[in-house]
């Protein structure tokens, strides 16, 4: 296999992430759980700290200098996010508390206003619970019907019957990349098919936006949801991108301050976009932190991030296969170009909890469980997997450490 060129220097990169210099159980930490949440570069921590130390104040309503400055920095972050995903206007960037809230906002606000009994929503078998349960709630409330795009045997979407599934559908909501299998889905094909069928499309970008260049115009998506904490940003912040005309027509989600134009005893009118969907005091520090994360990622270059992860994916798959042969089974597509750096695996017939526990003793952090994708787990016929996932700060030494620790795990349980 021709190994891709990796534009990123692992050592210099790691130095920017304070957590990566700590030790666990006396060994340097090997963080391989970025699909759950990423580590944060100093630039992001500093941006938030600086907000709290110099301009902390409530936004949008203060006439005094630090409140103006806070408002400016928050709205600048919105503009950074807008450009990061190629949205046309800042009105289309709505800050939420996480991607889950963004997905719920569409299901609940758009859904309640536009769906009725028998209407069809198309999902896929590889969705995260965050893109399943909100729709289940509408099944119970409204009586919509859910249809599921199946998977092929390498864990890719099987689009053979897509047009049939979309026939008469109102919504297509699918992840751009599986957080279990690593599969990167053909988003444009999906959104084109949805549009042809007269359905709106929502893309769960949680695993794709942090890892590759994103342009909502090219994706053709009506809605896109993602989380800050998986893209070098802080916890407590997510984004819903929505096409302006859809957002204009959509009823508000939460009621309160910021989202109103006028409130009387007998009713209220809503504020302009995007604030119509941002009730209450925003997550100001977190928005500013997300803006800093976007700037930081722009500095690295999203194409470099992707190239780095393709190279690391090649290395990971070949290393694990070389060292463990049939003892390991890595789920998902075999070609690195079709997948992101998420590796769910079965090893030696051991339970993922036990694998992860022993790996931890070697300071290797991987996730064990259903990864919030129980329907996919059931389809795969397993209860849980161990999952290692990489990001821009990982390098081949991390993969070597994982392999060494897996060796030790196998040994421990066959004693």
């Amino acid at each position: 296999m021709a190994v891709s060129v990796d534009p990123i220097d692992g050592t210099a990169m790691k130095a920017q992430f304070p957590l990566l210099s700590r030790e666990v159980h006396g060994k340097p930490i090997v963080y391989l759980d970025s699909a759950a949440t990423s580590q944060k570069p100093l630039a992001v921590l500093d941006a938030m700290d600086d907000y709290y130390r110099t301009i902390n104040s409530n936004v949008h309503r203060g006439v005094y200098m630090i409140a103006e400055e806070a408002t400016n920095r928050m709205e600048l972050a919105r503009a950074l996010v807008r450009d990061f995903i190629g949205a046309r206007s800042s009105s289309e960037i709505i800050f939420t508390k996480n991607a889950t809230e963004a997905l719920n906002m569409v299901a609940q606000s758009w859904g309640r206003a536009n769906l009725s009994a028998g209407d069809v929503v198309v999902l896929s078998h590889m969705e995260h619970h965050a893109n399943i349960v909100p729709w289940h709630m509408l099944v119970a409330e409204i009586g919509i019907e859910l249809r599921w795009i199946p998977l092929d045997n390498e864990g890719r979407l099987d689009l053979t019957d897509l047009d049939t599934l979309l026939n008469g559908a109102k919504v297509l909501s699918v992840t751009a990349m599986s957080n279990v299998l690593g599969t990167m889905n053909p988003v444009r094909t999906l959104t084109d098919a949805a549009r042809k069928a007269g359905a709106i499309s929502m893309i769960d970008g949680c695993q794709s936006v942090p890892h590759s260049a994103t342009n909502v115009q090219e994706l053709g998506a009506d809605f896109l949801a993602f989380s800050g904490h998986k893209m070098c940003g802080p916890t407590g912040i997510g984004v819903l991108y929505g096409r302006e005309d859809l957002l204009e027509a959509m009823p508000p989600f939460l009621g309160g301050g910021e989202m109103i134009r006028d409130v009387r005893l007998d009713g209220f009118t809503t504020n302009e976009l995007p604030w119509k969907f941002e009730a209450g005091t925003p997550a100001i520090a977190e928005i500013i932190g997300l803006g800093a994360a976007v700037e930081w990622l722009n500095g690295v270059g999203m194409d470099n991030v992707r190239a780095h992860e393709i190279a690391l994916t090649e290395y990971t798959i070949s290393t694990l296969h070389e060292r463990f042969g049939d003892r390991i089974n890595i789920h998902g597509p075999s070609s690195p170009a079709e997948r992101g750096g998420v590796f769910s695996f079965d090893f030696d017939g051991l339970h993922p909890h036990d694998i992860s526990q022993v790996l931890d003793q070697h300071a290797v952090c991987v996730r064990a469980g259903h990864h919030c994708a129980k329907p996919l787990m059931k389809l795969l016929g397993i209860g849980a997997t161990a999952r290692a996932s990489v990001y821009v700060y990982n390098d081949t030494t991390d993969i070597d450490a994982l392999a060494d620790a897996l060796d030790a795990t196998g040994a421990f349980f066959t004693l």
Partner: protein
Amino acid sequence: MPGLEDLYREIILDHYRNPRNRGELETPPALRVEGFNPLCGDEIVLYLDFDSNGGVADIRISGQGCSISQSSASMMSAAVKGKSVAEIDELTRAFKAMMSIHENTLEGAETAEPIDAPDVKLGDLEALRGVVKFPVRIKCATLAWNTLAQGIEEASA
């Protein structure tokens, strides 16, 4: 660091203390339009009498607001009274161009482009140029204008 004198020019305080065209007009024939500044609660009510071509024959202002929104409304009323739709449109664009340097910055400085402004004399309104240095107050300055635009739209609809 901009100082108070950049914001509160003497002419602004003059319009604030002695607002022009304050009052109401009978509706109908006049059109009544309300505008809100959602951030601070300022409300402006415009009464508009249109001539047969849709121009603003007469205008009155009521409502409450700060010195910037009140003086901007007062200056606007003096500037648009007796003007045709086309003239008002040009004035509005010129005024917004003066203001929106900073409205754009709010939307992300890095993409702000110069706005092409019609070549119109703004007169007294020039005094509001300093407002762009106080971004929160831009909405105060533009409130009357947005409300006027809404009124003209309603009248022509």
